[in-house]
């Protein structure tokens, strides 16, 4: 009893078992990282050594040829000799496409939803509750249900395989974002806004000049979460934007898989491609890791 009270100060939560906790975390980290390590290892392996050295932790003669051919820096002959088909990934173009796709949706959708969320949280207008209920019901609609008619719509409008057609369905609206931001606006203290109102600031001004600056944190959080989600998106870009000009990185990787030789998938090339697709993510982690964690703390804490 005495020892327990003595230790209370700050560390009630972590009494015994710190070692056990460290071990668990270490296992989790290794399990998380190992597949990525194996991906890089395979990407550095010459195709000829792929099978003979299948259980070697590091290739005997590491090579960059797989990256070169995936990036289209090797000739077709070199590529074929290394187990590929001469197919390559226009990495820079597809990364830019991914950035445009994920970036524009993250920014515009979050702002558009923030405006709507503010209206739902603070303004009075007829049919508000019904409308909010209808929008929330949208949360339960699986993407594929609207994907099929949206695909047909884009086809009729001749917008398939254009960047506009690609971003359009998600650009303005996400029920979850509206729900999440409305909750936040509801939790904001009203005093400042009421003071501004007495000074004659209108509803739009209160949203733009007070509520929006006050909610930079949650808005950044939503943007980041949407950015990640759209960065990983696959099915819609696969069906609606599979042309050279609009292909995003996820689809490009899928297409590269399809261009493997018929009789033997090009694993070294595929792993090089996968490594490239993970690179931007690593950059995000290195530069935005802290913000990401804080965002999660924020969304999880709310």
């Amino acid at each position, binding site marked *: 009893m005495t020892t327990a009270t003595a230790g209370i100060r700050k560390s009630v939560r972590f009494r015994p078992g710190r070692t056990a906790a460290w071990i668990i975390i270490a296992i989790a980290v290794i399990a998380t990282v190992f597949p990525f390590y194996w991906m890089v290892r395979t990407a550095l392996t010459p195709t000829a050594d792929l099978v003979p050295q299948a259980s070697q932790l590091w290739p005997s003669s590491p090579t960059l040829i797989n990256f070169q051919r995936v990036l289209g820096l090797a000739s077709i002959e070199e590529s074929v000799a290394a187990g590929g088909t001469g197919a390559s990934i226009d990495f820079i173009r597809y990364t830019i496409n991914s950035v445009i796709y994920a970036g524009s949706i993250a920014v515009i959708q979050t702002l558009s939803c923030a405006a709507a969320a503010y209206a739902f949280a603070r303004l009075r207008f007829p049919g508000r509750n019904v409308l909010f209920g209808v929008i929330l019901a949208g949360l339960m609609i699986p993407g594929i249900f609207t994907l099929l008619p949206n695909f047909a719509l884009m086809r009729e409008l001749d917008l*398939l395989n254009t960047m506009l057609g690609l*971003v359009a369905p998600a650009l303005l609206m996400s029920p979850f974002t509206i729900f999440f931001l409305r909750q936040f606006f509801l939790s904001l203290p009203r005093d400042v806004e009421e003071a501004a109102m007495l000074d004659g600031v209108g509803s739009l001004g209160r949203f733009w000049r007070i509520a929006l600056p006050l909610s930079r944190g949650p808005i950044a959080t939503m943007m980041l979460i949407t950015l990640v989600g759209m960065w990983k998106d696959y099915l819609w870009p696969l069906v609606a934007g599979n042309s050279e000009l609009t292909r995003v990185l996820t689809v490009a990787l899928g297409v590269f898989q399809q261009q493997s030789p018929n009789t033997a998938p090009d694993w070294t090339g595929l792993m090089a491609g996968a490594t490239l697709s993970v690179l931007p993510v690593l950059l995000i982690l290195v530069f935005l890791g802290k913000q990401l964690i804080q965002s999660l703390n924020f969304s999880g804490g709310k």
Partner: protein
Amino acid sequence: MKKTTPLAALGVASLLALTACASGSDEGSADAVTLDYWLWDDIQLPLYQECADAFTEENPNITINITQTGWAQYWQNLSTQITAGTAPDVFTNQISYYLQFVQNNQLLDLTENVEASDIDFADYKEGLAERWVTDGKRYGLPKDWDTVALLYNVEAATEAGYTAEQLSTLTWNPEDGGTFGELVKAMTVDGAGRDGLDPNFDKSDVVRYGYYPEWADGAIGQNGWGNFAHSAGFTYSDDEGAPTTFNFDSEPLIETGAWLQSLIEDGYAPGFDEQSTLGTQAVMENQNVASTITGSWMASTYLAEDAPVEFGFAMVPEGPDGRTAATNGLADSVWAGTEHPEEAYQWVEYLASADCQNSVGEAGLIFPALDSGTEAALEARDAAGFDSSAFASVADAGETFTIPAFERSAEVNSAIQDAMQAIAQGADPAERLSEANDAVEALFK
């Protein structure tokens, strides 16, 4: 089909205002035309690239952009692109898939173009050209033909005591596998070096299997079960196109399925779950398996000088109903939605011309549809020391069957392939095939 609803137009108009994203659609100018052309075989890609270069030299205003997509994804991809309205102008077509495109009016009728040209189908391998005509309309020009044979590891066969001559007289039946069944057992080796005929053979520790069955083979079984079943009297249906009766539940196929299943159970063939994502070529070259059935289009790869293992080809074994090797023809078709039908036809005609067919033939990889192209291919193989007799002789002797063409082929393929894969995993062949046959027949009701 292009009815733009006011609502959608409103939405898109405002989106246009909201985003500054440029929409990129690549419309060529009137005189310079780029045609997209699809094929699935990476090995043939360089050959057709040569044709494309030569074609562009003759027609400087037309550029051919070739895309290769692996067989496993080719048809799904093509379907998606067709529904998206962005299919390639010209693509390699296969007989068992083409009717579903015809059904949906996705192929350009080439009849008039062909009549206006000086193409004489008598110059092409017999029977190929007619297959691409439905209801009097022509949907493709013959491209190449192929057949299948038994691919074996020469060292394994020799060790087992077989000569090339013996391998060309193998027999097969669904009850005990015939002399082919013996060969498969004899080429199987366990960890202690015992072959499959040894009474102490340990089926739980096999280092080399005698035969590698292909399970991802649609409703045809072109690279495996279809050949065996057909040689035991199996036919796919009572009719082509949209048949009312299918025979996937008939005895010969059930027995064939049961025999292949027994190979797995007895340790002479790898289990379904042991199949490698590396593919047939890798397991053959790593000597995990000693034989399989494969097509003439793969011959040059296996027989190439730099192949790590010595391989040979033998005719598919003779079944109770005779020797029957699946034969098939490909064609080049024009997508109905192409913006450049004239240029697309020009390219298709060039692909079927002596210029292209002979130059493809000279590489010896495949048998072009044009007789002179096939001759060139056979000569090239002779010159390289490749023995093509296993393919050529079955074709010459008419010991082949042409693979059938059905409407709704994607669904038929999916249903039958599922059934065959279930059998590979131990399901009851009669039950599974009868279910699948009902499902397939239901598609045409």
